[in-house]
């Protein structure tokens, strides 16, 4: 497989690391080599969690600025903040549901309009899929499944070339039994929503 570099950005508690592990498991099922690196030092205290996943034949496990093939953002402002990792050829998949930083919550910082975020991402990259993953996660049964909704959207873009079946099997392997049905529904909802959400 040609080397494909995926960056996932999220806020602490959104399930970024589980999503990465599901993709890693899917790579194992597909027979694709993978290396991942994560940064989550202060995540539990409200910070940003970033995963870098390198699929294919490269041997590094981190991704330099401008070199991500895909950017998957769990929170729109964080997606925009990570735009430096992209080039004009990068595909972007983002959640549109916001989690404003505390500084914004108390009126000491600006949060860009979501429409403006979408416009900038679309203008500067090779394609944007934007969905309200929070609404779909709630529909699936819990806000906790936002990460799996977004995996559904990512797989719909076919940017990784993984089959839907492989990813579903990976979700089965990596999900606690009590949450499996909810996550499978979340995946389907994200998968369907992304088909109609290219902007």
């Amino acid at each position, binding site marked *: 497989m040609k080397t494909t570099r995926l960056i996932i950005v999220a806020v602490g508690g959104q399930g970024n690391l589980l999503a990465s592990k599901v993709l890693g498991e899917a790579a194992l099922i597909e027979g694709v080599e993978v290396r991942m690196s994560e940064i989550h030092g202060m995540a539990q*205290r409200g910070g940003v969690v970033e995963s870098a996943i390198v699929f294919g034949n490269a041997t590094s496990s981190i991704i330099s*600025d401008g070199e991500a093939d895909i950017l998957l953002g769990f929170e729109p402002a964080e997606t925009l903040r990570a735009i430096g990792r992209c080039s004009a050829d990068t595909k972007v998949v983002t959640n549109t549901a916001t989690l404003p930083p505390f*500084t914004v*919550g108390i009126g000491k910082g600006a949060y860009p309009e979501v429409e403006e975020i979408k416009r900038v991402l679309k203008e500067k990259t090779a394609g944007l899929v934007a969905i309200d993953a929070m609404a779909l996660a709630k529909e699936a049964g819990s806000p906790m499944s936002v990460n799996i909704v977004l995996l559904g959207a990512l797989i719909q873009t076919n940017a990784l070339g993984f089959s839907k079946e492989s990813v579903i099997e990976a979700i089965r392997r990596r999900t606690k039994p009590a949450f499996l049905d909810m996550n499978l529904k979340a995946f389907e909802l994200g998968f369907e929503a992304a088909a109609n959400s290219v902007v």
Partner: protein
Amino acid sequence: MHKLLKDSPGEKIMLLGNEAIARGAVEAGVAFATTYPGTPSSEISLNLFQMSKESDLYFEYSTNEKVALEVAAAAANSGLRTFCMMKHVGLNVAADPLMTLSYVGVTAGMVILTADDPAMFSSQNEQDNRYYAKFGGFPMLEPSSVAEAKEMIKEAFELSESLKQPVILRTTTRINHSNAFVAFGEMKERKTRGRFEKDPMRCVTVPAVSRGLHVKLLERLDSATGLAEKSDFNFVQGDGPLGIIANGVSFHYAEDAVKDLGIEDKTRILRLGFTNPMPAGLIKDFLKDCEKVLVVEEGEPFMEEAVKAFAQEAGITIPIQGKSADLFSRLYEYDPAMVREKIAAFFGFDYTPVNKIDTSDIPEIANRPPNLCSGCSHRATFYAVQKAAEGMDIICPNDIGCYTLGFMPPLSTGDFVICMGSSVSSSCGFGRATDQKVVSFIGDSTFFHSGITGLVNAVFNKHNFTLVILENGITAMTGHQPHPGVDMEQMGMPGYGRVDIEQLVRALGVEHVSVIKPFKVKKSMETIREALAFDGVSVIISKEPCILWAKSMKLKKVRPFEVTDKCTDHKECINGIACPSFYIEAGRVKIDANTCVGCALCAQICPDNAIRPLKQ
């Protein structure tokens, strides 16, 4: 069963670097393991801790790294395979026993892991601990990947046993916190009962003995050099006149760069994985076939200086470079594109960097700084101290832990932080050197780690400050590890003792000791005022469990609060305590019921009495 205890050779699973290292240690038959938690090493010990509950592996969280190393040294000299792991700055704490343990050596395999943190993702400095190997005379191995880390620790135990010398395994964050597929290997049987054979001429380091031991250490290092020359961890890849010497994760950045630039047929890479002692013969051989050499290593010019010295010995005068203003930096971590660009520049290849996106015109995005959690009791303690000390000129030395975040406004209670335990000792200095009032903070785990000794000093020398010990019942920052003050019965783990901080502090001779419940704000402030008025050393123990821990142990019932119509909008809550559950909507303060845990701190400080439990 713990996933890393499965006896299923050949099974391939996705593992975090730290999990792979723990698994490698178990495959090597490790029987005894000690640590003090520190990122990026924490998950190694977490997994060994979990496995120790299900097997005869002995594991302990020691009070600090020096203690951990001393405990481990005894086990390794009783014939048990022993593993001692810590973050890079932890090795500074353990440096004292480290430097003499190299003289004494071991009778069974012992591996000391240092997890270095280039770019300081969660550390106060980015020191390069390879120098400790050189400084103390330890053989050192450095993996380049997750899978290799697992194999290397097994080799490290073998190497240690053959040399009778502890071996340093040096990782960096990008090994510890990377994931990759790893195949399980065979499990070596664990030997869990040892015996110490007395050998005073090796183990009792009085000067007359140590003089002889230093000679023997140098002999062991000579043997180690021979092994490094032949080690499979040091290998040459590719063929061509352009040489690259690389270690650790930098090797893979260099390997990818050579491929990306299409210069495989012109380039040879010497990957060094056994890096102390440096294999002089191998390096000289490599240099002979090169026209020009670039050394790619994060951190300090550890290999570069050695390579240049070997070249001089061999009379080789080719250009050898690594760190310089226009090549590699001694700062932060490297990345693949940067390594590719430097390789192209050094060897004179055309290279067009990717067309990065112009980010000059993107909308402004507010930062997302880390913050004390909603319902964190440290916030209440900091607030109460600030209020109690209003009008006083105070200095607040702080320490290493979640509570370091107290330095941020509006709490602003962190004026000086250098290392674990430093809040107490530096308070001694500030109290003596200035006329300001000193109020310092330390967590319970950190107090046991190295705060106690500072307090002993304060009592003896009659210093003048107030120390607040934030007793939240767990080591919170690194992920809820136990410490000597933790109630292990509550964790479902009998068989441990428990040290009571209040009794301990009184026993040290502190004359003014008080205990507060920080969520009782008014009462806490009164007690703090009394402590501040005391001339001499006073200690306040602020007792309240870590909210994340309490929630996970189901010790706390969450009951969110709300802001009622009585609010007249002076925002004392936001300006005073800045809990992340607050937000402003249409100019009014609101509380996010999804994140509020109902600590009631804001309810107590609201002058309007407008914050009440949410009616459900």
